[in-house]
């Protein structure tokens, strides 16, 4: 009797695990830096050569490991992060699987040096392709240094799929940016081929974002802070001016872990609907905390995905938190010019500037890095920081100097506090706000006001549904049928009547009136698909919103239409009462600001 099934030797199992965890040098960086963060390091240095293909070195000042731990850490499923089964339900560390180190060690020439503070000497372990070659004592500061050389040297297939050094370095840079934003309290240094591409000091989130995203983007960031039902959302989101064409600047973290989750992204985009154009993505850095028992991060070895116990709750909490900020259109009132320069900078800022100056004098002129990291080289960058988070979200914050009545109890809104200059071409309203010339598109403004009013009315009244003479049979998939059954009541609330008709067929016997003239079955499918993946549906709302936007667009002043000053004042006043006043329902901006400085530049006065 021949034996066909073998238990694989450990070197092979490690290689298989590496296939899941380590895709490219950036994955190594992610795993190792996360280990460093879990080890309470607050200074982390990452160095790569040739995009990480030749060398990756990660140095931290964390608590280090003893000789025994260091050797054990290279075994598979060996971890200090969880001990018992129940720990899996409440994971608060970034890692927990105990797979990263042995996996990386099995596909590279690997060198681990570590010292605990209690131990006078450190331990250095050399591993080659998963085999320990040498273990010796060494002298080093507290912490851990891991050197990974010749990644994938024994897995030629993987090696072949690596891109050029520049591309891989770019991926590493992106990973570093994500990690740096996730922990503003940790200093990061990132060196590529001997060039320092990023050096960020321990600071707060806002400053870290400025360093990671560049100061232009960072001036338009607004603070989000909300917490409801155990889910808290904190961070910064951008206004409509600083949008990107990809999701690359959407940094979302769940319990400190960077995730790229459909649910989260959907919630963010829903909140931004009508604020930015379709196909544009905002800059966000959001930290979502949910009780550890409410999510499962053990979905995929790289942990880019998570599962929520209660999807719709997280979705709605996030969308609500963002809308809360966006509806006030804080970017209207918050401008870099109005913020005091950081003259009274704290010791931190001072240290930073010194460091930056030193840096600038020491280093050779260098190419601007591909990701917006190296603001430390920009000495002037210090003065242009965005306002402190405490001030960020407040409407009408810095009082306009011309405001006549300083003792007024109820502060005027942004729009009504402006001085009306007049109308241009009977289409645009010109106003003065402090040292700014504000141009308002009167059609877009009144459209938004009308739309918001219609929406309120619609929300207050029930949805009327038109019953069908010939009920339509809809063939669904197994999962759609289950969803239809589960959400039958919710669907009835928005006007759909679905009845099971045996097997995977359901009968659609009533549709909401607004959808009565289009194909109801398609809308039902869209809604079911959304319910299945997100536990909540916006397809119907979207349809309603589109319709409302169209009605709003046609019901207000269009094109050339002279307005007298009282009408303008009334429009401005109602804009202050309107949520999301800064953009029309289609996402176009309502107002444009020309600063005095810009005007002076036009007239060559500067």
């Amino acid at each position, binding site marked *: 009797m021949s034996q066909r099934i073998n238990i694989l030797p450990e070197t092979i199992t490690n290689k298989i695990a590496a296939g899941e965890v380590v895709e490219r040098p950036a994955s190594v960086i992610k795993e190792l830096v996360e280990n460093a963060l879990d080890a309470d390091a607050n200074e982390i240095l990452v160095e790569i050569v040739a995009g990480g293909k030749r060398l990756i070195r990660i140095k931290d000042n964390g608590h280090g490991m003893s000789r025994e731990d260091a050797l054990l850490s290279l075994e598979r499923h060996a971890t200090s992060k969880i001990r018992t089964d129940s720990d899996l339900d409440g994971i608060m560390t970034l890692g927990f699987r105990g797979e990263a180190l042995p996996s990386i060690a099995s596909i590279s020439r690997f060198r681990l040096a570590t010292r605990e503070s209690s131990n006078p000497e450190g331990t250095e372990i050399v591993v080659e392709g998963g085999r320990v070659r040498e273990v010796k004592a060494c002298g080093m500061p507290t912490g851990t240094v891991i050197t990974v050389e010749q990644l994938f040297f024994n897995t030629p297939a993987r090696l072949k799929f690596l891109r050029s050094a520049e591309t891989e370095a770019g991926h590493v840079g992106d990973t570093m940016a994500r990690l740096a934003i996730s922990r503003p309290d940790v200093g990061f240094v990132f060196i590529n081929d001997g060039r320092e591409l990023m050096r960020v000091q321990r600071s707060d989130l806002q400053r870290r974002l400025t360093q990671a995203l560049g100061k232009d983007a960072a001036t338009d960031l607004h603070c989000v802070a909300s917490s409801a039902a155990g889910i808290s959302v904190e961070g910064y989101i951008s206004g409509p001016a600083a949008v990107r064409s990809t999701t690359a600047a959407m940094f979302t973290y769940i319990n400190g872990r960077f995730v790229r989750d459909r649910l989260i992204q959907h919630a963010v985009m829903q909140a931004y609907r009508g604020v930015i154009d379709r196909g544009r993505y905002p800059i966000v850095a959001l930290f979502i905390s949910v009780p550890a028992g409410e999510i499962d991060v053990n979905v995929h070895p790289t942990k880019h995905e998570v599962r929520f116990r209660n999807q719709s709750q997280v979705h709605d909490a996030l969308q609500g938190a963002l809308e809360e900020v966006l509806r006030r259109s804080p970017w209207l009132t918050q401008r870099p010019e109005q913020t005091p320069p950081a003259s009274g900078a704290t010791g931190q800022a001072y240290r930073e500037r010194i460091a930056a100056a030193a840096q600038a004098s020491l280093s050779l002129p260098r190419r601007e890095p591909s990701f917006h990291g190296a603001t430390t080289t920009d000495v002037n960058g210090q003065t242009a920081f965005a306002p402190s988070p405490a001030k960020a979200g407040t409407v009408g914050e810095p009082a306009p100097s011309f405001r006549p009545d300083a003792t007024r109890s109820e502060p005027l809104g942004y729009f009504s506090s402006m001085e009306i200059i007049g109308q241009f071409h009977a289409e645009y309203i010109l106003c003065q706000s402090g040292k700014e010339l504000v141009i308002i598109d009167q059609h877009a403004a009144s459209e938004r006001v009308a739309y918001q*009013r*219609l929406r309120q*009315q*619609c929300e*207050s*009244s*029930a949805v*009327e*549904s*038109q*019953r*069908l*003479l*010939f009920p*339509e049979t809809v063939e669904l998939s197994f999962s759609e049928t289950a969803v239809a059954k589960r959400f039958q009541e919710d669907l009835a609330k928005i006007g759909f*009547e679905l009845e099971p008709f045996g097997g995977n067929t359901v009968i659609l016997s*009533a549709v909401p*009136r*607004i959808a*009565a*003239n*289009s*194909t109801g079955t398609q809308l039902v499918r869209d809604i079911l698909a959304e319910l299945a993946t997100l536990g909540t549906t916006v397809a119907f709302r979207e349809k309603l919103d589109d*319709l409302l936007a169209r*009605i709003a667009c046609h019901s207000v002043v269009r094109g050339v239409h002279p307005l007298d000053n009282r009408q303008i004042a009334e429009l401005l006043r109602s804009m202050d009462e309107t949520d999301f006043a800064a953009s029309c329902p289609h996402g176009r901006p309502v107002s444009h600001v020309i600063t005095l400085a810009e005007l002076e530049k036009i007239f060559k006065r500067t």
Partner: protein
Amino acid sequence: MEFRIDKEVFLKSLQKIQGIVEKRTSMPILSNVMLEATDSALHVTATDLEVGMKSSYPAEVATPGKITVGAKKLYEIVKELPNQVIIFTTKDNDWVEIKCGKVQFNIVGLSPEEFPYFPAVKEENLFEIESSLLKGMIEKTSFAICNDETKYNLNGLFTKVETTEGGDQNLKMVATDGHRLSIAKGTFKGNAGPELSKGVILPKKGIYEMKKITDEESGGTLMFGFMDNSAVIKRGDSYMVMRLVDGEFPDYNRVVPVANNRIITINKEVFTHSVRRMAILSSEKFKGIMLEISNTGIKISSSNPELGDAMEEIDVTYDGEPFAVRFNARYLLDVLAVTDTDCIEMKFKDELSPSIIVPEKSDSFLAVIMPMRL
């Protein structure tokens, strides 16, 4: 080709086919009209592949031939020409010269070879039908034709001849958009043939063109018939051919309720005006009007959160259980507009089941409307 034709005749011939030529089409030739000169007549043909029309007019033909020209531009040109005889000549490369008095136009045409084939109609297959009957029945049903292109089987009028037990033949036309249904009935004389006995769906566009033909002249008869999956209508020297909708019309008899025993009779004028008034406050897209029917009469009401509400009472005799039902006001008005009796009967079952509206003491027309639910 060269022919001379009276301006008014030419203008009328072009006017007639304007509704058929496609304004936006992927086949440029379909926005053209084909002019064909034979011995002593000019044949004007237009088609969008679904509906086609061919008419003949007297003309003085010098050389026979054919050409296609942009239908809309040619119509605009002829409309503005002086009231004299027009000389129409084709040149090389499909150019066309139009002369009228001292006016001269040179316009570019397209080769007639590419124009879709227009079937030759065999007269013996046609039967006579009263123009006014057709007109009335189209009026009573066409409003309910579905405009959603995806429900292609509802984009037309279902037409069928039914033979009663007594041997009488009834012509029936049915239209529905899935929310309401309209059935018109008329007496049919002659031989129905296999198509009408089985029932056919006449396309929406063809119906509208057919209605134009019946509008032109009150009284008289049309010739009607079928060939190769198309319906043919002939009047005088004009033929119209429409391709039948290839689809299954839903079983409408199933949705016409038979047990609606809550019946009220109401004056059509009074009811129409009331619904119109109430509809002012119901917004077309979101809100219907409500009918509350009790022993004291009908209370019709509507409300709009933005504007306010409205209510009106009409006295009717009703001695059943009181109930309330909601409708899209548009659907009620459409039905009321085509009813030609003084009073209508409304038959209900409950607030969610289909309701019937029929003219009083007449079975020529029946409408079914699905109520709305809040």
